[in-house]
């Protein structure tokens, strides 16, 4: 169930959400740069068709847009994926699955949030069962706004992500790990006891969901 809190939306806890960009590189060496370069050349995508954005994701692989030339290709399971695309509004029921899928991905992993709904709820801003701000629950690396964004925008987003990876910037997954308590608390707030078990973060024992 959705529990309404005093502080809603992006007014509160802004600091927590702000990922300092570009300054914190993970490690700098020739090998690291080579690895980063190869990483950005190959992005396996777990496309989560949560909303209408799913329609826009499909053409990405077709002859017209051909995302494969950027090394972007679909992955069947979260275990193999590097990038999770949340394509549109996120219902509470879907959020649970998204969290689960995200936690099952292997690091380094990135999240692309597609469309306005993921940023502020979009046209579902007052719906009782959608999540307004995805980044309160899982870290988002790239937002692509629009309602809906075109595949070109998505490609743009991928290129931007590739650039960040290439530069060796810290991904959202670091943030998730460092602030796992906060994320889990938020998740618990909306999902109650429906929060998926955090098998992946087995070192995480805060609360009773571990």
């Amino acid at each position, binding site marked *: 169930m959705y529990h309404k809190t005093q502080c809603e939306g992006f007014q509160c806890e802004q600091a927590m959400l702000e990922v300092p960009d570009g300054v914190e590189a993970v490690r700098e060496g020739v090998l690291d740069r080579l690895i980063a370069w190869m990483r950005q050349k190959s992005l396996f995508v777990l496309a989560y068709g949560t909303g209408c954005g799913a329609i826009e994701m499909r053409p990405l692989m077709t002859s017209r847009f051909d995302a*494969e030339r950027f090394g972007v290709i679909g992955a*069947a399971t979260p275990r193999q994926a590097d990038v999770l695309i949340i394509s549109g509004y996120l219902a509470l029921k879907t959020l649970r699955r998204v969290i689960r899928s995200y936690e099952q991905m292997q690091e380094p992993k990135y999240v692309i949030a597609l469309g306005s709904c993921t940023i502020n709820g979009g046209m579902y801003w007052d719906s009782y069962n959608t999540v307004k701000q995805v980044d309160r629950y899982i870290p988002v690396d790239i937002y692509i706004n629009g309602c809906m964004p075109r595949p070109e925008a998505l490609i743009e987003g991928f290129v931007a992500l590739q650039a960040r990876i290439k530069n060796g910037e810290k991904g959202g997954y670091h943030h998730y790990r460092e602030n796992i308590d906060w994320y889990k608390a938020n998740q618990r707030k909306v999902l109650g006891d429906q929060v998926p078990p955090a098998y992946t973060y087995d070192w995480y024992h805060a609360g009773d969901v571990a």
Partner: protein
Amino acid sequence: MHAVVDSLAMIAVSYVMGFLFYGFYRQLNARVQRRWGPSIWQNFFDNMKFFFKSETLTHGPMFFFGPMIIMAGAFTTVLFVPFLKDSDWLQGFSQYGNLILIIYLLVVGPLGNALAVGSSGNPFGVMGVTRGLTRLMGLEVPFFLGLALVMLQHETTSVHAIMAAQDGLANWGLVTNPIAFCVILLPFIASQNGSPFDVVGAPVEVYAGPRVEFGGRLLGVLMTQNMMMSIAKLVLVVDLFMGGATNILVLIGKAFALFLLTTVVSMVFPRLKTEQAVDFFWKVPLGLGVLAVILTVWLPSWSA
């Protein structure tokens, strides 16, 4: 020392050939679909990306050792297939093996990996394994029958001897025993996980598959062995039907030609369900095989 260097060279050659061929395959595929497609190195990048994932999940020791077994199986397979004819190099340990051994070695790795899949506890993975084994059951019958025709033709199971018997285009297995080649062609495509028969791996679309639980570096290992194993099979067929190769360029050329053939065949067909595939193997290629046996074994024996 020679053996070590030679082995490492064989592994390297098969790996490089593997990702280049598959890179080419992806490009060709894209072109057929009127796309640009990725670069020819794309498979290398993918592979390296997986190798350098910072996190890898395991489901216990068996899950970890499965990919190791399949990789070791791939290495062993590669080392037991002679890459070159009349050469000291790229021979590996092929003089200690034979054709039947190679065919069985091709299966050792996947079965080892099947243990890892089972150990993951993911039922979808196990379903994929069962599908793979089912397909194997279908394709192996005509495949082996075709190879048996070759063994019978040369009265040996030694790949070296079969290669040696094919000097000159006129003595190529393709020319002297074309029907055997026809028999093995479709099963060969299936064993390469080629298109009409690729529902097992189902790279992108189907959730259930042997690799459902593998990620990170383990998936990288699986990719690597897949490419190497494909090259081993290609080289094997080149050895058996195309007279082998005297140097590395000829080898690449012949293997590439064969690869092109299988690619072209597989590119234009939609996917079959496993049961359909098995049924198909037992009807068309096996029927062809029976015909071949009647033509090349029974008739000469009766007329003699």
